[in-house]
């Protein structure tokens, strides 16, 4: 498959070979040079960033990142391909360039005017934890950088945070752990919330507000003699600052409005944990209280068995796929109604895709499920992406990329998705920070001459 330079030429047929997937111009010339002069044996030299892709496209102010943990089947969702096993009730219909399983994703079907689907996407690894981390930090977690690499949302926070805002810039809904702020200050850490509709956790005092006020006044009285030393300079008041920020969140009517919602609202969103998170995300986007990046995690997509009787059961109105459709479809509709959709980028994806070919030519495996597969597809909405459009295409069963369909002319990778998100939010995705603890320089999007990672601006036509 690969020659001794690690180049896979197999995907090159039918094209001029120097434009083949996986081969950038630089590696091509290096290959040629090495054949002539042994260039490849020279020690690798730190190369200056050559960044193809240009200035940030700046289409959105905020982002909602729906992470479908477990890795949903791409050919049953965002790269729909009917197979012999596909239930008829999936009822695929065409919307512009998109073929869409309306039967299981009816609400999102109504929103496709504002949706673009990336189909030439390939995960680097088919291992859950590894790939999940990879997408969230936008780089290989097996490198020693992983320990200091911030989550994409933390980078967004670093760039776009309003220090006077009431709420943190990066909220992570329905998760309690995952990649964090890396080496960034903790102000950029994911702020974990699992919205239940009854307010933000620990922003009220379980023993009642009178008890809290009494206790807090006592604390202040006891601390009266404490001097706020300024001898040590401006970094002095970290703890006090956090306490102040925390206090501002407590018994705050604005915060309560975001995280408190009535039953009929919950019902509209499906009355599920995911639906509740979508309501909170909508309120956060609408409120303009400082939040710029909202992650919503929805698990349960690791459907190795019984995919059409479980998560994708078209007869079950509460199947996982319907919970997803209800929540996200209503969220997009509501943001459109309030005029917030055009400057909010919405992404939905898993850590990889699922298998399409099995023993005996079957569409499903022996347990009527699908296993891990690198090919996947990503859902983009809002931020004025070109509606009813697709980026790239896969072959007839969705096994691998047929046409990349974008300037990179190769599979879209985690690093490109990262660059796309930064670019859409107006962040200079070519930034290299000089403040990391390894003294090396932290690249927002990894520089790699073999791939020239870059944003997929084709989403905007």
């Amino acid at each position, binding site marked *: 498959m690969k020659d001794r330079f690690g180049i896979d030429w197999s995907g090159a047929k039918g094209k001029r070979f120097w434009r083949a997937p996986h081969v950038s111009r630089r590696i091509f010339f290096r290959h040629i040079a090495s054949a002539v002069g042994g260039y490849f044996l020279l020690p690798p030299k730190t190369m200056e960033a050559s960044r193809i892709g240009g200035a940030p496209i700046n289409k959105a102010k905020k982002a909602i990142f729906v992470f479908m943990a477990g890795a949903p089947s791409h050919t049953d969702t965002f790269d729909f391909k009917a197979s012999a096993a596909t239930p008829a009730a999936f009822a695929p219909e065409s919307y512009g360039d998109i073929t869409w399983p309306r039967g299981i994703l009816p609400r999102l079907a109504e929103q496709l005017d504002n949706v673009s689907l990336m189909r030439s996407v390939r995960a680097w690894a088919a291992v859950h934890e590894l790939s999940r981390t990879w997408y969230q930090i936008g780089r290989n977690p097996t490198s020693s950088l992983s320990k200091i690499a911030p989550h994409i949302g933390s980078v967004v926070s670093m760039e776009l945070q309003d220090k006077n805002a009431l709420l943190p810039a990066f909220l992570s809904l329905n998760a309690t752990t995952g*990649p964090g702020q890396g080496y960034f200050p903790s102000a950029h850490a994911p702020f974990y919330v699992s919205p239940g509709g009854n307010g933000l956790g620990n922003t009220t005092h379980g023993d009642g507000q009178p008890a809290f006020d009494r206790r807090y006044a006592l604390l202040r009285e006891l601390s009266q003699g404490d001097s706020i030393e300024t001898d040590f300079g401006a970094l002095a008041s970290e703890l006090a600052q956090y306490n102040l920020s925390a206090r501002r969140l407590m018994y705050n009517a604005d915060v309560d409005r975001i995280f408190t919602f009535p039953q009929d609202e919950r019902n509209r969103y499906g009355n599920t944990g995911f639906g509740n998170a979508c309501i909170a995300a909508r309120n956060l986007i609408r409120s303009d209280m400082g939040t710029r990046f909202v992650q919503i995690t929805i698990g349960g997509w690791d459907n190795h068995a019984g995919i059409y009787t479980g998560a994708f059961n078209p007869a079950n109105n509460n199947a996982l796929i319907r919970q997803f459709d209800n929540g996200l479809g209503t969220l997009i509709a509501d943001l459109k109604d309030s005029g917030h959709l055009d400057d909010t980028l919405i992404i939905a994806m898993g850590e990889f895709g699922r298998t399409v070919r099995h023993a005996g030519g079957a569409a499903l495996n022996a347990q009527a499920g699908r296993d891990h597969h690198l090919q996947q597809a990503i859902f983009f909405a809002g931020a004025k992406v070109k509606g009813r459009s697709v980026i790239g295409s896969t072959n007839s069963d969705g096994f691998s990329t047929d046409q990349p369909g974008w300037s990179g002319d190769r599979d879209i990778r985690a690093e490109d998705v990262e660059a796309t998100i930064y670019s859409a939010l107006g962040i200079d995705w070519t930034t290299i920070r000089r403040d990391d603890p390894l003294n090396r320089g932290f690249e927002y999007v990894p520089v790699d001459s073999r*791939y020239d990672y870059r944003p997929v601006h084709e989403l905007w036509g």
Partner: protein
Amino acid sequence: MTGTRAVAALLNALAFAQEPIDTNCTFRAEPDRFLAAEARAQRQVQDRLTLFSQEGLSRFSQDGPSRIADARDIPQRNFIDQAIFGKLIQNNVRSASLTGDYEFVRRIHLDLTGRIPSKEAIESFVADTNPNKRDQLIDSLLYSPEFSRRWTMWLGDLMQNAAFNSFQSIQINGRNQFHAWMLKSLDDPNRSLKDMVWEALVAKGNNYDEAAAPVNWNLRSRTPGGPAQDSYDTAFNRAATQFLGIGHYDCILCHNGRGHLESLSLWGKDAPRTEAQGMAAFFARMRFTYTTNDQTNYYFNSWSIADAATGNYDLNTTFGNRPNRTAIGATRAIPPQYRLGQTPRTSDWRAEFATFMVEDPMFARNMANRIWKQLFNMALAEPVDQLDPARMDPKNPPTAGWSLQASHPELLERLAEHLGSVNFNLREFVRVLVSSSAYQLSSRYDDTWKIEYVPMFARHYPRRLEGEEIHDAIQMGTQVLANYTVQGWTETAKWAVHLPEPVEPRSNGGALNFMNSFYRGNRDTTDRQQLGSILQQLNIMNDNVVRSRIKVAASPTLRRVAGMADYGAAVDELFLMFLSRPATSAERASAIRFYETRGAANRNASTEDLAWALINRSEFILSY
């Protein structure tokens, strides 16, 4: 459902990426543009001091004597003091004075056992008139069961014991066995850290078996998405980083040091990739075998490690996590060679490596440096995982343009020697550290403090308690104990420090989130951090972990205090219980006035309010 999980688990265990993975080494050396790493560590300590100074231990100055001394007046109790105070005297820098009894008793309990002292422990220590009472307390804490518990947590961090990881999971059973092995080892007062590391490096067998528990160390190194050489590299690199403190092998396993490490490592800048690969080659005979995907079997998802009689580190890779390994002329495999020149004398390469490593002077330096950091809150050589072997030995100073890496190079050498002379016995080594006057300095410094003083250890540096320690400090004060179920354990965990890893207790999301907001790390992608956050503040003010424990109805200690008609006595007790010190006169007056204003009818509520307020003082979450 069970079938699904079994298949999923199998695939998790077996799945490799099916494509080449980019190395994504995005490090670029442009060091002129940053603060040096050592300076960064000093800055972090400085920031903590700053934070600490807010809480105003300076208020002690109203009551106590001045906390500043001429360094010549501090008694030098051992070789540590000769080095620390010698340097202060030489630089004409004043020293903080020795801790008072209250400051000392809190610090030594936290550092050795992870818990604040009980009111009774404080009172009896303070009342004791024996001039050797500090040494006696140190001795009793070193040999208390809680010492092994707290230091198993430390060792678990060092040996990265975590059930689920982004490389290779060892599962709950593996984690429990590894944890039990560490705890049992540390319970044994004669056990040597050197032997433990040696066993971890050479262990064979199934990772769920008690007899093979240390095999979990190497199992984690199995690396997805690449050829077997990637796993050899990871196994070596983890050992080098954690046990030798030399993290730069990670760079050199991809490429020569030249062009990358020029201003970071005197040793590393000229080290070729083949040197690192020669070290990794010792692992080239290690073999991983998956056991079973039968979910009903105890060994479900377990792995075994064994060693093949033959096998080499071949230069033949075309994909994976590191750049291709290609033949160099006629050389098609890298022979094992330890960094000090040794080559294996037997075919059991892994055992040979383990022996060379624990005898390597860097091993003793690294262990001494890391244990020092745990107790002094800043290492002699920072960062602890980026030691430079060419800048360690004061008898063999580095070339021009470079300086020795440690703030006190002779002291680090002496500590490494001492660690050897006590046969790597953790308790005896800790004893010499905490017995020193240097450790027993006050964290207060009643004179102008300068950042240049930081590397001189002119005062004790405070630290924020770990999430587990904060949880347990609340329990110590209130005596309301937890009852956390841990998967695979027959007994519940009553103290957070006893938990086997920082992502527990999974069985209690409330307690988990409370502690995680204090950045416990996950022993995989994230280290422990000393940062503050909004969530921490919300949690300590409002979370059930605090509120449920300060209820008079739940807490026997608070119930006793609430029953006291003498408000002054009640206040005195509360301050000892939570802050391990007496109230200042101003604090005492405020608290008594609070009791009086609220009246006898509210005595229970007032006691709860005071407990809450003391827990919310920022000094409560600090060891100072």
